[in-house]
């Protein structure tokens, strides 16, 4: 009898340690894989108060001592952390009697641990590239950036398959590291629609009144206030929208452009129409997304665009700029509206179109929600990921390593 498929995942973050998007990704992916009959061992960095080993919904989680060695800088810390991650993972695999079929690494932050263990145990290595140094920095300008880029290149070289979360990232990663086309595979990022279940039946009128007048439509932006997110494009679109619709613009998130943006709003005398919220608690955010008459994602650069998916899962109609992963998430005039990036007139047109027509709004809402359930559901993504593991193991079984 064939034993169940067993995978060991490496991630530098896993809840409750949350730094960016990899943590929730690995959390939901591993849980959904476990539900799908895959034995998942996650090896990750420690977090104050969290146990060194626990089982979460069938997922074995190991937290390693990640600050064991003093480090002069962040990249050196990463490689030293990998030294300890590799050592502890090696002992775990050894103790399990080498019953791990596949290693799966998430980003360069766990590159050396994954590469070393691949060779030591002679098992296939998969990698999910969530982002790239060359994309994040728009080029390679320093030795650190070049070193990270070369580590990423090495990791994709050693990997049996490279998973990317959007077609855009597939082509970007292929270009960045000169990979053959058949090495890349697209599996979208998922969104958890169930987080909105609890507030589905809640009466949100009094909650809504705290943010907007009943006659004001709500336009919601969620994201960092930084240039590549295009928040300045939205601010420039505000007066254009207000010529046609009475609306309140709610801006959630913070960033280096905050001061500059609020000065612009003040100079336009629109303080009563634009509300800067800073960071908000999850429960407030979920309710705001439910209340929003339109959610706007005006990014200039976006590898995936999880914010748009979350809005769609909350049944809020979306207007996104036609770029990166956003172009794939939204079908124009069906599951949302796509507008020209960096163009306030185009953005204002999209927002106004949605706000002025309630039937159209509901049409978009329903299409979008259906697409989220069909394409971005974690269960489905886990099934796709499992099929990739099985395909790799099929190829591996014919190799001389098997």
């Amino acid at each position, binding site marked *: 009898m064939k034993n169940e498929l067993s995978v060991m995942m490496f991630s530098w973050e896993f809840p409750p340690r949350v730094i960016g998007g990899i943590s929730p990704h690995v959390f939901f992916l591993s849980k959904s894989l476990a539900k799908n009959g895959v034995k998942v061992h996650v090896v990750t960095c420690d977090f104050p108060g969290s146990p060194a080993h626990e089982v979460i919904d069938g997922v074995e989680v190991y937290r390693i001592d990640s600050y064991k060695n003093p480090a002069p800088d962040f990249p050196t810390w990463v490689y030293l952390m990998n030294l300890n991650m*590799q*050592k502890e993972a090696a002992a775990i695999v050894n103790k399990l009697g080498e019953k791990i079929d596949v290693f799966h690494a998430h980003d360069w932050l766990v590159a*050396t641990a994954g*590469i*070393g263990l691949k*060779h030591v145990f*002679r098992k296939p290595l998969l990698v999910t590239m969530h982002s790239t140094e060359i994309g994040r920095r728009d080029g390679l300008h320093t030795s650190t950036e070049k070193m990270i880029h070369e580590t990423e290149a*090495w990791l994709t070289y050693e990997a049996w398959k490279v998973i990317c979360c959007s077609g855009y990232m597939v082509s970007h990663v292929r270009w960045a590291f000169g990979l053959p086309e058949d090495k890349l595979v697209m599996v979208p990022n998922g969104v958890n629609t169930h987080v909105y279940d609890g507030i589905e039946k809640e009466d949100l009128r009094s909650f809504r009144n705290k943010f907007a007048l009943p006659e004001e439509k709500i336009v919601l932006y969620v994201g960092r206030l930084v240039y590549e997110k295009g928040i300045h494009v939205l601010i420039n679109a505000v007066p254009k929208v207000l010529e046609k619709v009475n609306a309140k613009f709610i801006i959630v998130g913070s960033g280096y452009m905050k001061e500059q943006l609020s000065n612009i709003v003040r100079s336009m005398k629109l303080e009563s129409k634009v509300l800067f919220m800073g960071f908000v608690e999850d429960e407030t955010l979920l309710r705001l997304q439910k209340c929003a008459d339109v959610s706007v994602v005006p990014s200039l650069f976006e590898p995936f665009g999880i914010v748009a998916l979350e809005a769609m899962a909350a049944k809020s109609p979306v207007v996104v700029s036609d770029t990166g992963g956003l172009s794939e998430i939204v079908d124009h005039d069906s599951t949302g509206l796509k507008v020209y990036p960096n163009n306030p007139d185009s953005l204002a047109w999209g927002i106004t179109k949605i706000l002025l027509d309630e039937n159209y709004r509901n049409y978009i809402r329903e299409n979008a929600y259906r697409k989220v359930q069909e394409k971005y559901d974690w269960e489905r993504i886990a099934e796709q990921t499992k099929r990739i593991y099985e395909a790799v193991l099929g190829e591996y079984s014919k190799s001389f390593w098997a």
Partner: protein
Amino acid sequence: MRVIIFSWEFPPRVVGHLAEYINALSTQLVKNNVETHVVTYHDFLTGTVEEASGVKTVRVANPVRTHIGVLTWILTLNQEVERAAANIYYQADKQVDLIDVYDWHFIPAAVTLKNALDIPFVYSVESLEDHRSPTANMPYNMSIKSIEWAGFYEAKKVSVKSEWMRDEIFRLYNVPKEKVTIVSPNTSSWIKGVLKLYNSVAGGLDSK
């Protein structure tokens, strides 16, 4: 007996005295019927060769060419050392008696191989960070010291060339003296001492 030696210098790459010592040691081991592999670094002479002495040498280069310091260079190079050692292990039907690792550079690889494949290792000390950079305690130096510490902690035996070094290791790292063997290269019993040490380590992690 099958032994893998890790050293970051080996002829033709000569940095200090270590290259010539490893050359002499590996040659003597082969003469004493020990199958001896040396895994070392070279920037471009990569691959496996059998030296005239009968020593089998694997030279690996770092896949990451740009670095911000010795530490990032060493920590990435270690995966290639692991790959080379794992290849020897699998080609030899998983029979490798021990790894002899010289100084801190390839301690990370030795530690992983021990934990993954139960190959015990000897940590042979040529010099210590505390002597190379006296009084230096920047994060860079502390990091190297922490790798030396991991070597002492994980090694089955520690090998030194003098009583003075054994005392230094005790003073700096509290390594019990029973764990440390003195093998002086300047005596006629040198290679016998090495073989005796190897025999005491070979045979898995639990042997005496």
